[in-house]
């Protein structure tokens, strides 16, 4: 492949949204209320919509006969490049919201920078996605505040979720080889520069929600290199089931 770095760079962005979209999709029919159920699956559909644009572009770059669906559905676990944060399970609604919030704040900042990319396709996808993600961030922030500053039980659960998920936040700002190459070409976003604002914004909202900002300095990493947590295999088993059981099946 001629443009391996660009291809991997696109996958890195797309896989975050694909895997998070799949996680949210699991709530279809299982959300805590009808209204939040629809809200979560709406976010999921927004993400899948964005993912299609990325994978169509990746298929064009790869130019090896694979379609967007092949790239999205038929890779092995080690070939998915999403961060560990987005593959974490829907343990309870606080975890779903906590994961969403910690990702949305990053996602919004990331897309704002990606819109300035020299690559016009990526810039256009970012521009289109950013309105959707602005709503995602509003939705998840609102819920962090509601649960954090809610009842004693909701506060305990929200704090527990933030504490547990915190360890996956640092990885958002790690650079891969593809990242570095793309930043050099003016195509990619330098994620290391987003880190300070991220923790500032997240901390501010947690404090407003009367929650404590975790102090832990121990962080997990690996997703961006394809080394995932134990939850990933189960997620892919469900995501890929139809194509594995009935290869080339069409809707």
């Amino acid at each position, binding site marked *: 492949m001629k443009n391996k770095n660009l291809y991997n760079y696109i996958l890195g962005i797309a896989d975050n949204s694909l895997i998070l979209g799949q996680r949210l999709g699991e709530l279809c029919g299982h959300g805590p*209320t*009808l*209204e939040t159920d*629809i*809200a979560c699956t709406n976010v999921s559909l927004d993400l899948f919509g964005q993912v299609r644009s990325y994978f169509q572009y990746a298929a064009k770059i790869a130019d090896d006969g694979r379609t967007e669906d092949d790239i999205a559905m038929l890779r092995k676990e080690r070939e998915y490049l999403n961060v560990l944060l987005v593959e974490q399970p829907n343990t309870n609604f606080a975890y779903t919201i906590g994961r969403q919030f910690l990702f949305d704040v990053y996602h919004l900042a990331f897309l704002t920078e990606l819109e300035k990319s020299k690559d016009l396709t990526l810039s256009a996808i970012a521009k289109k996605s950013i309105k959707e993600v602005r709503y995602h961030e509003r*939705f998840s922030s609102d819920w962090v505040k*509601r649960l954090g500053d809610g009842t004693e039980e909701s506060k305990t659960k929200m704090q527990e979720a933030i504490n547990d998920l915190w360890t996956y936040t640092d990885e958002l700002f790690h650079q891969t080889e593809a990242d570095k190459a793309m930043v050099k070409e003016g195509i990619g976003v330098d994620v290391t520069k987003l880190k300070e604002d991220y923790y500032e914004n997240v901390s501010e909202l947690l404090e407003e929600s009367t929650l404590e900002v975790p102090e832990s300095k121990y962080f997990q990493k690996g997703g961006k290199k394809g080394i995932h947590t134990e939850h990933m295999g189960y997620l892919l088993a469900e995501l890929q089931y139809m194509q594995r059981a009935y290869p080339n099946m069409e809707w």
Partner: protein
Amino acid sequence: MSTKNWPLWEIFIRSKNGLEHRHSGSLHAADAEMALENARDVYTRRNEGVSIWVVESKNITASNPENNGEMFEPAQDKVYRHPTFYDLPDEVKHM
């Protein structure tokens, strides 16, 4: 977990072509802000609206169906209240 339900809200959406807000349905939410967000997610996913009103259902006073007799039936045999008994001159347009 609390099993108490959130209050019910009535949702009014103004569509792109319509001038007035129309009743779209109802949903549950803890407060007005959440009702707006829920309404956005439940009732405007297919590009239906450009504006949303939410009203807590308890603030709506409704007529009692048991009183329909005295409320509405007296109007049934008063066709002369429809303006259909006038001869309109041809010069009057758009009536």
